[in-house]
């Protein structure tokens, strides 16, 4: 048997990974103030627009999908009957 990778079995590593992730998020928000913004839509100048839009889009997607599931979900053998 080959050696297995287990780095994500250790909660410490998962914690480190998460902290790294959160730092990236903060850096992304901060870095926006150091870049040159070129002509786009007016709302693109609003600081953190993309972050907010991405977050809301994602939650909206999952929220609507939950409703959609109630409408379209059937048993796996639905068509075989």
């Amino acid at each position, binding site marked *: 048997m080959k050696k297995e990778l287990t780095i994500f079995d250790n909660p410490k590593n998962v914690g480190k990974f998460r902290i790294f*992730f959160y730092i990236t998020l903060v850096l992304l928000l901060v870095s*926006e103030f150091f870049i040159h913004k070129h002509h*786009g839509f007016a709302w693109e100048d609003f600081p953190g*627009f*993309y972050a907010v839009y*991405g977050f809301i889009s994602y939650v909206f997607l*999952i929220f*609507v999908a939950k409703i959609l599931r109630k409408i*379209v979900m*059937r048993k796996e053998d639905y068509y075989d009957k």
Partner: protein
Amino acid sequence: MINNMLPPAVLLIFGAILVPFLRGKIKSWYMLILPVLVFSMLIKLPYGNFWTFEFWGYELILGRIDKLSMLFGYVFTIMAFIGVLFALKVKDNLQHVAAFIYVGSTLGVVFAGDFFSLYIFWEFMAVSSTFLILAARTKEAKNAGFRYILVHLIGGLILLAGIILYIHKTGSAKFNYIGLDGIESYLIFIGIALNAAAIPLHAWLPDAYPNGTPTSTVFLSAFTTKSAVYLFIRTFPGATPLIWIGGLMVSLPIFYAVLENDIRRVLSYSLLNQVGFMLCGIGIGTELAINGAVAHAFCHIIYKALLFMVAGSVLQMTGKIKCTELGGLYKTMPITCLLCIVGAASISAFPFFSGFVSKSMIISASGAEKIVALWLILQFASTGVVDHAGIKVPFFTFFGHDSGIRAKEPPWNMLLAMGIAAFICIFVGVYPAPLYNLLPYPVHYQPYTGMHVVGQLQLLMFGAFAFTLLICSGYYIPEIKAKNLDIDWIYRKTGGFAYKIFDIVLNNINKIADGFVIGSAKFLTNFFKNAFAKLALFLFVSFWLIMGYRDKHLDIKKNKLYDDIMESTLPIGIGAAVACFFIILILMAS
């Protein structure tokens, strides 16, 4: 000089016939060399029209070579090589032959300069791809394959009706820009839209593709939809309906992708979403948008194939493909996992991966034209891609809860095929200039500006942040074994009734056609008796080899066929088939 070579399509289709006769290493090399040969041929071709024939007073063009067709020719050939390498160890000749004919006919569609040859290759594509679905030899695959070919035959008939009206109106079979004007253009539009899996004509795709074999679905994912995208770019650039069809396609399938449990079905809905981006680009129709659509087709073919190859590897090595049954595979399949993440990053359009340099062109084009609603939808859809393809596929397969499965990495040829695809994804993402140079219009676009990179990263990472919060709080949508209804409900539930109607109509058409074919076949059989017997033997021996007849059985069948032909006791159906083939040969020789 060029007219002395075979057209790429013909080379691959005829090349396919040899595959069942070869064995071992020679077979592997032969299959790998075919696409390389075609690629080296394409590189040398100058622009212009080649392989032109006269046919009933119409000009047939098998080689319309320009910047647009060339780029699609390149990517389809590269994809053919990757696909063949991935499927190299498959023992099933049916799959190999069908795949080569499928690739060949797609190249035929791409390089066709007239509607006659386009239509013939179009139908070849439909039939050969059906065999790739049937190759799985399961009940689901058989049923899905049947629905698939039915839908495509109807689409083909609509296209044919449009073509006939178009030729009647213009007096020529040649085509280029058509534009939405008149009934014939709408029929052609619908015919192409069906192959592009444009909503609401999309349901065949998530119905059929997840039922292929681990390797055949890789081929399926690349060719049919993207050759339709090519035709849309050729014939309907700037057609406004495409903007809104594309808008629906980028947004609706992502909800299904969230719900689906079968990874290949998730990827199929994701494919619809990606084709949606291309259709939006074509609909906008500016130089930037068209460039974006073409570039996105190129990148998408490679990274979507990469993701389907990962799914195929997982299916082959574990025998499972559902999110609910997988998880924790990174422990024993770390390379596959890494390749999956490259594919996921590419489709999510992370900076320095291929999707970023192409998708951002389309979104920027919508912004430049100030189509606000579309711009917002496209940005929303980009986040949606992060969910299903960027996070869900790698997370639930390789991480998530430990399923206890300890599968090995797939064999070297599969890893290498995925590796090549992953390399292209990163190379194009880091250094897009070579791709940009191949695009139909000059590119003045710069994807790597501070604003693009930071904006895109914010969009993606805060989407991922939302995922983290949702999954930790337990609000994230749970994976459930279920069937989610789509438009195909209409024909699957009312299918019995429709089947009867088709049965009556098609059978009557068959009878009339049979009468005609039998008439000509009788004439030809008398005329070419001996040559005919040899040709029939050649054809049927190839067929029997594919079907798995060997040695004694093959000899018995051979002798029986030869006697039958020489004594003219041949079953008429076989006679007709060979006669048709003979007519084609004569036409090509003259």
